[in-house]
């Protein structure tokens, strides 16, 4: 009887211990470079161009890093992976990171990726929607739970019927009253190709202007400040170089990874980024990669004011400027 009971129990217990024992510690590879993984939010595209530029130009190797860019997609789950430290870095919008941080997730923003987020709402000319207020009662296809939509609802006192983003364009093309989340660098290209009359409402124009950022987990940053600094510096160099051009090699790599990215389309995206000064910003206090604590604080205040977050987040703790390259850091206004 004793054996009958003990044997299955022992098996279960040892199995569970085995399960928890799986660590994810990475070690330095034979070539002396430290392996780092960046999880992007989507398949390779121009909006990740600077990272690919840093890869093809060898900027990461120069600082001793062997960077793998893991392409995202509809189920990228970058935040989850970063928090559980199965990848080192992720990219996303500053407002979403603030919301996660106010939910006690140990995340830290280490650098800006773009001074202005390309997120916009795509509407048909015929829809009669000219401002955010006109969205009241409309159906909008967007990421459920995204801070941006909740902010719009509260700020403009409107009610939006949200349907989850399916990352397709067919429903937009089929219905003139359809509204969906988009990147100004992305969807309008296809819409124009299909001959539809569409325009965009840039979220940044609503008075809500989050950075696009690079983030990591608090634990990783605390343990490896030098690696974080190196990664930020090389990525920053990559972005400056990508926006200035030439970018043929990086674009060739992007096309190879994601064949839907034609040269024509990549050029469209880059032009949209340049025209709207998304990466480097258009204010004197803007700069590629720079995070102004004042602006982060403003964003936190915005989210608190409309009730998207309930607990305040410390801007300096969430987005310290210590990981920025020295020349960028010099522009921080305290």
């Amino acid at each position, binding site marked *: 009887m004793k054996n009958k009971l003990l044997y299955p129990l022992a098996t279960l217990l040892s199995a569970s211990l085995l399960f928890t024992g799986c660590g994810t510690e990475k070690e330095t590879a034979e070539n002396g470079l430290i392996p780092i993984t960046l999880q992007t939010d989507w398949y390779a595209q121009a909006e990740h161009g600077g990272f690919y530029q840093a890869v093809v130009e060898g900027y990461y190797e120069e600082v001793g890093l062997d960077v793998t860019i893991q392409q995202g997609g509809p189920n990228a789950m970058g*935040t989850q992976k970063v928090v*559980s430290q199965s990848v080192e870095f992720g990219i996303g919008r500053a407002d979403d990171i603030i919301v996660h941080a106010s939910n006690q*997730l140990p995340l830290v923003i280490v650098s800006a990726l773009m001074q202005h987020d390309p997120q916009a709402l795509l509407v048909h000319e015929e829809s009669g929607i000219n401002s955010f207020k006109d969205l009241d009662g409309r159906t909008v296809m967007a990421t459920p*739970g995204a801070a941006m939509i909740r902010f719009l609802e509260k700020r403009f006192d409107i009610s939006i*019927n949200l349907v989850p983003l399916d990352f397709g364009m067919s429903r937009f093309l089929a219905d003139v009253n359809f509204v969906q989340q988009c990147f100004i660098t992305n969807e309008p290209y296809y819409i124009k190709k299909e001959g539809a009359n569409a325009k965009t409402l840039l979220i940044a124009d609503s008075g809500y202007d989050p950075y696009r950022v690079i983030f990591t987990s608090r634990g990783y940053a605390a343990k490896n400040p030098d690696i974080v600094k190196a990664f930020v510096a090389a990525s920053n160099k990559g972005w400056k170089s990508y926006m200035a051009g030439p970018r043929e090699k990086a674009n060739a790599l992007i096309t190879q990874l994601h064949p839907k990215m034609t040269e024509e389309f990549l050029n469209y995206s880059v032009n949209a980024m340049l025209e709207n000064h998304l990466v480097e910003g258009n204010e004197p206090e803007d700069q590629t990669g720079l995070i102004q604590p004042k602006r982060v604080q403003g964003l936190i205040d915005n989210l608190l004011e409309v009730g998207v977050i309930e607990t305040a987040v410390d801007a300096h703790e969430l987005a310290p400027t210590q990981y920025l390259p020295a020349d960028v850091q010099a522009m921080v206004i305290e």
Partner: protein
Amino acid sequence: MATTSKKIQSALLPITSGAIILGIWYLISYLYGRSVGYDVQRIIIPFPHQITSALWSEREALWQSTRQTALSALIGFVAAVSVGYALSMLLASAVWVKKALYPWVLVLQMTPVVVLAPIFVLWMGQGLPSITAITFMIGFFPVVANTTMGLVSTDRNLLDLFEMSNATKAQEILHLRVPFAMPYFLTGMKIAGTLAPIGAISGDLFAGSSQGGVGGIGYMVILYNSQLKIPELFATALVACMLGFVFVGCVNWLHWYLLKDWHDSARKVENT
């Protein structure tokens, strides 16, 4: 006396194993939390009590989304059963009909519903019509396959008996084939009943919306996941599981109720 202690034992066993599983869960959460920190543990493998407290704090949203999903499951299920039954009658009416149509029913079945889902959404928009259509697609084939099988495999001897008594075709179908196929149909219905809540939840993943402030269970899954509310996500899984049990329980009861008076499978067998 012996039977009572056996009954107690059979009740104690699942409770004991449940307690052990719970204990192991706590142990894993605890060890994981110790190695990576408890704010990370909470969103990877939360403690069971964190899940129950999420269940409590989200009870209103989860109750509403469960009601919405239950409704889609019910409509899809009823449609699958009635359309499936009607189609089976048609297929069994003549050999040539079955030969002409059955391959196309198979084609429809073989097309994965995840591929059809975006097309349904394109045609019918986001919401209940698309979700029930997806539920219907998942549930209707087992009904058709089983019922048709029952209708065409009626006992040869009984068919001969009806023929000898000069029964009409209508009489043969109504009084022989239909009752004979009943257990087959009900088996198909049971399978459709098991699939309906799953169909409604996956339908909701594709076609759910926040109409009226809160969506169905599938929508809540997307929402909680994108907000990294992982204990809430586990709580949603718990609710979905309970919905499945309730739904299947009702269908099983119906199965038993319709067969209890005449079919061997549902009658209490004597002399156990």
